[in-house]
């Protein structure tokens, strides 16, 4: 219930944040909304020695139209994404998916940067940015770099961020095809997805079908080859490695993936 003791530091700029973490070494974590990290710390599954609070970095909280892409500051909350009229018109998938995360309280605090850095394959936004082929911008002690979403999610709770690197911006290209869909299958509305499906045009990603969000490549290939949603969806489980857990067996997840991909493609087709 109570985190193990740690030292709290607060950063007032991105540079300061990067600097503080670089100085304090390996056992330091960034604290944005804290809604992925603090629950782990309260159960003592994560025991960082130092937390650097980046929750005051207004400079990382924005949603801007940059012409052919929308730039989202990493500290933008899920609630802000869900309520953004810019996203509603340019990248409605992102706004909609953010609005399905957790509950209102969680959405008031949790940030897109925090969620992506946490790299939970059962979370929604990793699969969304993967589908949208977003570019993630990170700043660290050795400078700034851009990481393609396809390269960002390395493993279970493992992202491409190097120690001391901080996500600063997510660049989402304005989709060429307007057909999108989002299927999140849960037991209760509040739960993480047992399986989720994210569609934008001909691109399809899956939530909770592996150690990272996965592109349903076989489905995409079938679609590109002219297959119907039903026929394309039959390939949904190919290349996935879903787990068995309390809520679902692997076989059930694979079945759900096929059903939900079909429904998502039909939704997107109807909308687009």
């Amino acid at each position: 219930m109570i985190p193990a003791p740690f030292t709290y530091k607060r950063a007032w700029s991105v540079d300061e944040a990067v600097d503080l973490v670089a100085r304090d070494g390996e056992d330091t974590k960034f604290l944005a909304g804290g809604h992925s990290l603090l629950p782990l710390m309260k159960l003592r599954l994560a025991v960082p020695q130092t937390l650097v609070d980046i929750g005051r970095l207004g400079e990382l909280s924005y949603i801007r139209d940059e012409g052919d892409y929308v730039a989202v500051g990493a500290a933008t909350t899920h609630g802000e994404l869900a309520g953004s009229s810019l996203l509603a018109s340019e990248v409605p998938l992102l706004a909609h998916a953010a609005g399905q995360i957790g509950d209102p309280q969680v959405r008031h605090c949790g940030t897109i940067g925090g969620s992506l850095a946490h790299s939970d394959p059962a979370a929604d936004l990793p699969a969304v940015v993967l589908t949208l082929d977003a570019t993630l911008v990170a700043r660290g002690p050795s400078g700034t770099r851009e990481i393609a979403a396809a390269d960002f999610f390395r493993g279970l709770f493992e992202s491409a961020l190097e120690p001391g690197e901080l996500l600063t911006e997510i660049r989402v290209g304005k989709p060429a095809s307007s057909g999108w869909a989002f299927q999140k299958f849960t037991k209760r509305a509040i739960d993480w997805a047992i399986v989720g499906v994210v569609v934008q045009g001909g691109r399809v990603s899956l939530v909770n079908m592996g150690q990272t969000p996965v592109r349903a490549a076989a489905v995409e290939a079938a679609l590109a080859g002219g297959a119907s949603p039903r026929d394309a969806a039959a390939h949904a489980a190919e290349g996935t490695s879903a787990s068995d857990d309390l809520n679902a067996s692997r076989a059930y997840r694979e079945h759900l993936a096929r059903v939900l991909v079909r429904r998502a493609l039909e939704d997107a087709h109807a909308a687009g």
Partner: protein
Amino acid sequence: MRVTVTVNGSQVDAEVPDRTLLVHFLREQAGLTATNVGCDTSSCGACTVLLEGRSVKSCTLLAAQADGREVVTVEGLGDGELHPVQRAFRAEHGLQCGFCTPGMVMAAVSLLDENPAPTEEEVRTALEGNLCRCTGYHNIVRAVLAAAGERQTR
């Protein structure tokens, strides 16, 4: 570390361990025990308060994250009179044991702030992060809709 939070309009200033959760700061340093701890996985919402006007689960925030900011708990609703949401909860029998109630009320206040005229379905979805074991939610939903209605007619 030193943390200063404006709680229900008054400044509360204390030296606390860095790891102090906001909910414990409110219950101990601010001496306001209405906000309750009902779980340890951010699931139940009994700890819901307003931070800068928005509902948050105070068990999932460090007091340090609220440093220099404004928090409102159920004790700070209404000025001498019951807030419309409190009035509606009483009128509609939206509470039984009362343990989830402070958090539920604050979640409802935040909901109506963001969505002044919600449908029943929107109310139910907005309260998905607030667990109640006693009421079955039926009267809580009625209370929130009644409070919304009252706001509309004011």
